[in-house]
């Protein structure tokens, strides 16, 4: 936990969202002394209407937002190590977002909720910025993970959860239920990014602990600001409010079978291996699949996201097979698996570099992060095309 006045080196920054706020913030971060690495996250492309409210030019319309920003940042600071991740924040392996600080420049509650969870689990401070153009408001909040400290959801009520964006079965492939774009003006976005950058500067100056739970709301119509301190809510729905202690997995995902992982849990004092269970942050396990055409349910075993990225044919009729919500489980318990399943490699299950694996047993919980390897694929799509798509993915 960060102490008062303790130096805070924000060398690695993860910035999520490259739109109204993020397109300005990325440039500010690239200009900050001490920042050596910037990870940019945004799944979208710039559209013509973005030119009005975001820090881009007409030449960048049509480009992936992260791609356009990487080009710009390299011109600003060629020494900066920039990684672009054109994916939704909720779909990214937890470890890939690891940084010294995270900047949230996103629209909508769902993305903020994901960011909050990621920051808390990684133990990384995060600075959330948002705008409300209709009232000329800019809001910047600071969250520093730690026991007794407020998180984003501490301030949420039932109405906030009810207003979370959702994708309905009848609207697949279309935007979520609540249009997330705030359509912020360029001055508001730049102001929010400026405040975010200034807060980051104060954190680097050693004020991170003092800023935890602070929120500033600037009213652009009256040029007044209100600063508040967010309380930690004992009834917060985000469970336990504990940053995780995450250790590197002492092997590569392709070399360790599932049984070895459960054994590692036993060696870690979680209790007998057969009573240990496994979960992967941000994804669930598919345990059975159904055929669209002929209907039978067959056992399978892989992460749901690995299944999602490939089409599987039914061995009987050739029809497409799919996994429903009823076929998914949060956790795999060793005793519920057969030897053939336990012999499967972690990679074969769809586990990717950067994934954080949680083992739970009678003796407690521990977390391992799967390491990166130069030869290993980084996307679920790449993996599903190779290993997870083979018949070995079947139960």
């Amino acid at each position, binding site marked *: 936990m960060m102490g008062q006045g303790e130096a805070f080196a924000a060398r690695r920054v993860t910035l999520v969202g490259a739109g109204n706020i993020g397109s300005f913030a990325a440039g500010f971060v690239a200009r900050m002394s001490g920042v050596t690495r910037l990870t940019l996250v945004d799944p979208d492309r710039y559209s013509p209407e973005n030119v009005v409210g975001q820090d881009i030019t007409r030449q960048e319309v049509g480009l992936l937002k992260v791609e356009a920003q990487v080009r710009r940042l390299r011109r600003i600071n060629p020494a900066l190590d920039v990684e672009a991740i054109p994916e939704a924040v909720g779909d990214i392996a937890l470890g890939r977002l690891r940084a010294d600080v995270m900047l949230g420049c996103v629209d909508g509650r769902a993305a903020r909720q994901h960011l909050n969870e990621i920051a808390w689990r990684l133990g990384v401070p995060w600075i959330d910025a948002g705008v409300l153009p209709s009232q000329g408001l800019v809001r910047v909040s600071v969250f520093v993970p730690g026991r007794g400290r407020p998180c984003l959801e501490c301030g949420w009520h*039932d109405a906030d959860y009810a207003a979370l964006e959702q994708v309905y079965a009848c609207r697949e492939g279309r935007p979520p239920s609540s249009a997330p774009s705030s359509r912020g003006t360029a001055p508001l976005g730049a102001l929010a990014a400026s405040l975010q950058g200034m807060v980051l500067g104060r954190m680097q100056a050693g004020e991170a602990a003092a800023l935890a739970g602070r929120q500033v709301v600037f009213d652009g119509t009256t040029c007044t600001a209100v600063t508040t301190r967010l309380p930690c809510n004992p009834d917060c729905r985000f469970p336990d409010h504990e940053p995780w202690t995450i250790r590197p997995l002492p092997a590569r995902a392709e070399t360790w079978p599932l049984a070895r992982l459960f054994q590692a849990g036993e060696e870690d004092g979680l209790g007998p291996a057969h009573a240990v269970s496994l979960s992967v942050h941000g994804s669930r396990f598919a345990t059975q699949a159904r055929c669209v055409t002929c209907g039978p349910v067959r056992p399978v075993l892989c992460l749901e996201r690995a299944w999602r990225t490939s089409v599987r044919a039914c061995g009987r009729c050739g029809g497409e097979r799919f996994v429903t919500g009823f076929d998914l489980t949060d956790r795999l318990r060793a005793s519920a698996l057969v030897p053939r399943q336990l012999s499967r490699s972690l990679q074969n299950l769809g586990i990717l570099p950067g994934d954080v694996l949680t083992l739970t047993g009678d003796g407690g919980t521990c977390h391992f992060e799967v390491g990166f390897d130069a030869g290993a694929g980084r996307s679920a799509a790449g993996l599903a095309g190779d290993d997870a798509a083979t018949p070995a993915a079947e139960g």
Partner: protein
Amino acid sequence: MYDHVFAAFLDRQLADGTALAAASDILELLPVPEAFPGLPPSRYLARFTCRGLIREAGGQICPGHECQIGVCFPGDYLRRAVPGLIVTWLGPSNAFHPNIRASAAAICLGRLPAGTPLVDILFQVWELWTWNAFNLRDPLDAAAAAWARVPANRAGLPLDRRPLKRRPGDPAVVQHRASSP
């Protein structure tokens, strides 16, 4: 990590769902045993014995007399919900309804806020299957939506007027309450 708040939620769903099934002539609710001993169930199979519509192989629209769904509450259900992953359509495979696509095991209940109770979900599914409710915007089954737009077809709706839960005062309900703690 054991989430006591979520476990309490699951306990409540089991109690309320079981009470509803006991007070219903239509609903049969089967909790799916958990792989983790001592934990309350997070998955349910629900069978509704009431009238809806099915499409025969020849294309005729006929009455169907029961349907089945699966309900699954993931560990983060109190914080976020993906409606398509919470409720799964399990049959009949030829269900005919604007908001059901049986071939994809999909039923669209619309907005499903995080933490929506099991009983609310069961009521919504019953309303859909019996055509007490349907939404013609963004249909999952365009043919069923077109059918429902014809006034003559709508005249016979809803298809089943029996309530999901017997009215208070009915013997079975009184008996259930008497046996409740």
